[in-house]
């Protein structure tokens, strides 16, 4: 065709990113990260209880990007797609941010941090001391607290804890720690393997890496899905141990795919503004990525509404707590804002093809999407803080800590991610289907 790009038109050895060129943005991320880390250290020692929530929010927000990047490379390989080869390295690098994320998430392993977050752990601790005292199992001790209470500490029988006895097989402290490690291990294994194959292909150009990546992806997709689902349960649903929702895993996954796609569009636009990927990425890629963004806008709305709808309609006490908390005082406005800003606005905005292809429009759209995803994550984590710690609906001035934690985690992650782009070529330059991707028309 008239504008057909061939292998000879592209630079040999791919394009290497020079961090100095993007110094402004990288520096900004680094600066925010440093200030955030310093402020976080201060808040951590000052208000460990309330700051634990800030940190969980920031870590989980960053986690969604890693999980999302991982999903896109998995999907791309498993579905044998060729359109996204030109932008695949962006996702590969995003998924490989799992190691810095694991380091930043490690404070959650400290009892001082996870006990204020998860009330069920406090009950388990209590049951554990009882069990040691009476030489029984922790589960039996928990059951004891349900039916008889703890006379030594003047605690009456607490039937509310029965749910903890029923959930004991899954919801126990050791299991939580083991799964915490497993989630990062699985994500790291997936991200590392797929980028490893891709980088090897940069050297030998052998198609067998593409085929191997496809086989690998089809197998690990299931484990990926379980990882994201259960990570979402352990870290967020666990904030209120009485609550349950089978929609939750999918709901979080939809947010992961949505926000990471928005982020990758922004990264591609940024790289192109610095003079990279000029021949490799075209309007068509923006259009394709914009379409996926649109699809996940609808998917997220569908899933989150289904969750709300079933709980609202059935009106069963133990299920409605989650939404009652988020319908209290100011949180009600945030809920309505999410409905409009997370679904209606992006939906109408992304309908038009021209807007998806125009870099100015789509950048604004993607920034809005990242902002809304941030609000969504905030709305999921933070409303539990006040009630759980017995400090009312909103803990005064705790939002300062939330911003500090966000700067610390997301700033550091952004800084490391952008610098890490320099390590390999910006696109898999010897992928046999690169030319197909470069000339894609949809």
């Amino acid at each position, binding site marked *: *065709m*008239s504008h057909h790009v061939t292998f000879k038109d592209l630079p040999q050895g791919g394009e290497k990113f020079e961090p100095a060129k993007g110094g402004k943005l990288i520096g900004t991320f680094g600066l925010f990260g440093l200030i955030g880390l310093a402020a976080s250290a201060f808040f951590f020692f000052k208000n460990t209880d309330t700051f634990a929530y800030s940190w969980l929010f920031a870590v989980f927000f960053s986690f969604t990007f890693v999980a999302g990047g991982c999903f896109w490379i998995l999907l791309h390989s498993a579905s044998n797609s060729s359109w996204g080869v030109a932008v695949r390295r962006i996702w590969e690098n995003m998924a490989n941010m799992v190691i810095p994320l694991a380091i930043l998430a490690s404070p959650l392993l400290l009892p001082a941090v996870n006990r204020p977050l998860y009330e069920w752990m406090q009950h388990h601790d209590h049951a554990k001391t009882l069990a040691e005292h009476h030489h029984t199992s922790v589960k039996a001790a928990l059951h004891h607290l349900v039916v008889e209470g703890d006379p030594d500490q003047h605690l009456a029988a607490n039937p509310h804890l029965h749910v903890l006895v029923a959930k004991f097989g899954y919801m126990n402290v050791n299991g939580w720690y083991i799964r915490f490690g497993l989630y990062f291990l699985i994500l790291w294994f997936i991200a590392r393997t797929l980028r490893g194959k891709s980088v090897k292909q940069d050297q030998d150009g052998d198609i067998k890496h593409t085929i191997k990546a496809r086989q690998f992806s089809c197998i690990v997709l299931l484990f990926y899905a379980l990882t994201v689902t259960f990570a979402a349960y352990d870290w967020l649903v666990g904030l209120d141990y009485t609550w349950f929702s089978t929609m939750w895993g999918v709901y979080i996954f939809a947010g992961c795919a949505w926000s990471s796609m928005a982020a990758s569009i922004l990264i591609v636009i940024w790289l192109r503004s610095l003079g990279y990927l000029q021949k490799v990425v075209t309007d068509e890629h923006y259009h394709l990525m914009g379409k996926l963004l649109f699809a996940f806008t609808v998917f997220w709305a569908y899933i989150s*509404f289904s969750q709300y*709808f079933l709980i609202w*309609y*059935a*009106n069963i006490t133990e299920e409605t707590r989650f939404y009652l908390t988020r319908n209290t005082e100011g949180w009600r406005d945030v809920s309505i804002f999410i409905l409009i800003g997370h679904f209606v606005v992006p939906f109408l905005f992304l*309908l038009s*093809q021209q807007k998806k292809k125009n870099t100015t429009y789509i950048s604004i759209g993607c920034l809005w999407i990242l902002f809304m995803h941030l609000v969504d994550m905030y709305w999921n984590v933070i409303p539990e803080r006040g009630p759980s710690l017995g400090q009312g609906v909103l803990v005064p001035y705790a939002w300062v800590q939330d911003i500090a934690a966000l700067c610390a985690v997301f700033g550091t992650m952004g800084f490391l991610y952008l610098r890490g782009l320099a390590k390999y070529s910006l696109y898999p330059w010897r992928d046999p289907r690169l030319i197909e991707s470069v000339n894609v*028309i949809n």
Partner: protein
Amino acid sequence: MSTTLKRVHGYLAEFDSVKDLYHAAEHVRDAGYQRWDVHSPFPIHGMDDAMGNPRSKLPILVFCGGITGTMVAFTLETITQTNFWSSIGLGFLQKIVETYPTVVQGKPTDIWTLPAFFPVMFELTILFSAFTTLFGLLALIGLPRWNHPLFVSKNFGKFSDDGFFVCIEARDPKFSQEGTKSLLEKAGGKNIELVEDEI
């Protein structure tokens, strides 16, 4: 049947491959023709650009259809199930139909019972969009019709198997017996024939 009147439909040219067809389309587009079309056994990516086709108006129709669906569902549900229309001062609408709220699980009978209506609003949006897509498309491409003049050409039957064709119609203002033929020849067209339609 020498008395049969015939009307020239246009020139039909055959091409060997997608690539040839694509380039031919670009030639015809650049020559400034308006009333012409390409025919291939399968859709060809990028052909719209090669032909210089403007964007279809269908999306706008579908958007309007979808919005209509949402509004219809919203109106039907609120008018029969809630006091919404009376509360905004349009109580007379409420008298058109019987308002008979179905109270389930203590749900309110005002606008805040809206989430219960979302599934229907969603479904009718889809239904109306789908109908507008189908019928709008049929209207825009002029289907259904009994016959097409191109079916006169014996060679044209290949379009549904392995033939790639360009047809420039006689009603195009730039159409001329010699000029159009030579353009198609230059573009690499084979088996060029003047298709004549019986009136």
